[in-house]
């Protein structure tokens, strides 16, 4: 039942230190595949399975750093998988990814030994950020330095440099740049940016996103021959290095 998801277009990013293993247990195949694919693009080694029983067997037999676990699974309920794993002293960090939204569901999940809880539908950037947090808690040092061409951003120290020159950004500009870098070479719509940087979507339009992208352009692109932030007409923005 398991399969090793793989990508052809893109080789895993070189990641300093040891290999990081992630298991995705999700019965919705399309969803499982796109999650796995995205994680692989970030340089993680990902296994995927589609039911609770397989998930339990895999997680018990191999040491994964992080388990991304759905709750409503065929053959074995996600909550039961989690309890059994914890009873057998499996230490992997577990992130529950589910559409069950009530407070009781969250509490139950965390009580059963989950380390984080993310509600569907979610943004990939948020899933990635949470996975990184879980890895850091485990002592696995994920790559904190992100790089696009000669632009560097350190998530930990919050330093931004371009061509070796320090750039000062406000908190919102920093969040915006981090989001763009995390999604490098991917188009981000204005609404997606608004939701992830400001935490909500503006009913009155996404004008504020344009304003902040302009601030960011002034800070990181002005005075450099190569522009990194591009507008995709009618869609949104993209940070590209090619």
């Amino acid at each position, binding site marked *: 039942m398991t399969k090793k998801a793989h990508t052809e277009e893109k080789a895993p990013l070189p990641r300093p230190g040891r290999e990081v293993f992630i298991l995705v247990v999700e019965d*919705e195949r*399309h969803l499982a595949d796109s999650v796995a694919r995205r994680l692989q693009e970030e340089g993680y080694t990902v296994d995927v399975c589609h039911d609770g029983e397989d998930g339990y067997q895999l997680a018990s037999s191999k040491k994964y750093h992080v388990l991304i676990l759905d709750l409503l699974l065929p053959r074995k309920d996600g909550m039961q998988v989690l309890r059994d794993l914890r009873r057998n002293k499996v230490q992997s960090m577990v992130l529950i990814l589910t559409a069950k939204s*009530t407070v009781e569901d969250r509490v139950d999940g965390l009580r059963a030994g989950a380390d984080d809880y993310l509600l569907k539908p979610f*943004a990939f950037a948020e899933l990635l950020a949470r996975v990184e947090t879980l890895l850091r808690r485990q002592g696995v040092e994920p790559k904190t330095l992100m790089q696009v061409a000669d632009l560097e951003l350190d998530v930990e120290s919050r330093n931004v440099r371009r061509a070796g020159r320090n750039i000062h950004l406000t908190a919102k500009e920093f969040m915006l740049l981090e989001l763009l870098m995390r999604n490098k070479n*991917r*188009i981000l719509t204005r609404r997606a940016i608004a939701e992830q940087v400001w935490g909500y979507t503006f009913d009155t339009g996404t004008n504020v996103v344009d304003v902040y992208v302009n601030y960011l352009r002034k800070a990181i692109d002005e005075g450099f021959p190569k522009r990194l932030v591009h507008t995709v007409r009618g869609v949104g923005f993209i940070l590209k290095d090619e």
Partner: protein
Amino acid sequence: MLRSIRFKLTLWYSTIVAVTFFVVGFATYQFVSRMLNASLDQSVTNEVQWIAAHMEKQDERQESAANMRDEIQEHSRFSPLKEYVEIWDTAGHIFYQSRNLTGDTLAHYLIAPPDHRWLLETPTNFRDHDIRLAFNKTSRASIYLAMPTTIVTSALSELLNILGWMGPAVLVLAVLGGFFLARKSLSKVTKVTEAAKRITADRLHDRIPETAVDDELGNLILTFNEMISRLDASFEQMKQFSGDASHELRTPLTVIRTQLETALNSKVSPAETKMIIARCLDEAIRMSGTIENLLLLARSDAGQVAMKADRVDVKELMVQTYEESVILASQKSITVTLQKADPVTVQGDEYRLRQMLLNLIDNAIKYSRQKGAINLRLVREQNAARIIVSDNGIGIPEADLPRIFDRFYRVDRARSREMGGAGLGLSITRWIVEAHGGTLSVKSDLSVGSEFTVTLPVSG
């Protein structure tokens, strides 16, 4: 406070006590006053009669006038009440006058003219006190005899005095007593109120402590608790429903969102983009279906779905649906057989009845194994049409049977998702059957199969 039942009860109680006290007091006063006056009159009359009788006896015995005066005076001395006596002879001279009358003439105080035989009056102008004055005219003399009414008036004023201070005292006691009585009987009500206040939407599991006493209040508490139980159940149902609904809508939304995010990667090939778009379309259609069904159920709850009442040829409907279902079932190589189709018509909505039949068959296909068998039967009975859809599929566990018609309820949620159901089909089916005045029942054995039976009333 002034509008509280306790205040009103106290007010009523005190008013009743006060009115009772006033009536009893007034009656007592009247009775005592009448009795005292009567007894005074009696005394006066007795004295006059004694004098009259005595004077006649004296005459018979030929006693001297002086002797008679002495006897009258002697008699007066033993009277328990002070008395004034004056006797006139027929010649118009005062024959006898008691000493306490010095300077006064009783005859002057008589109001009515002394030409009656007998008079009894209360002149008010005698010295400083009222008197009861009796007059008796005999053949021998005119007798005037008076006694002060002080004995009556002082007794009455004493009584009034007693009633006067007893009144407020009784009233105060009534108010206090009424207040405590009301409080005692209402204290349980206060407790119920406090308990009811604690029970909010989030705390519907709480109940008011029930008393063993089978009184009005005990019944109230019982009724109240029953009401909370019903509220609790419907809140729980609502919570379950909105949780399920949001789950059903979130899942396709998640797929759409992650797929589209993937598509926005500049490195996704055009062919892959097309696939992603197709998946998203699928999910969107699935979501529309769920929303459509949800809206239909919501509108049916609100009674906003108009149900036609045409004559529907159920046999015809059954045959048509059977033909459609053969195609539907062929994907899983399931054999569908129309075993029996009696001619029968019912009063109803053809569109909804078709939807009901398709739902049942779709359900049977979903929960049948590859190469399974589904049997359809339409049986005409005395005054009912019976539609039976049976399969030899996976069956339904007994514990789940009572809940399969609940909205979003599925025996195995994870597996159902693959088959594309949101768990609303059977709810809609039951609604349609019940809207037609029929009944829907189910029999099932695990891994043997299920049998759904619709019974519709026949329109003559």
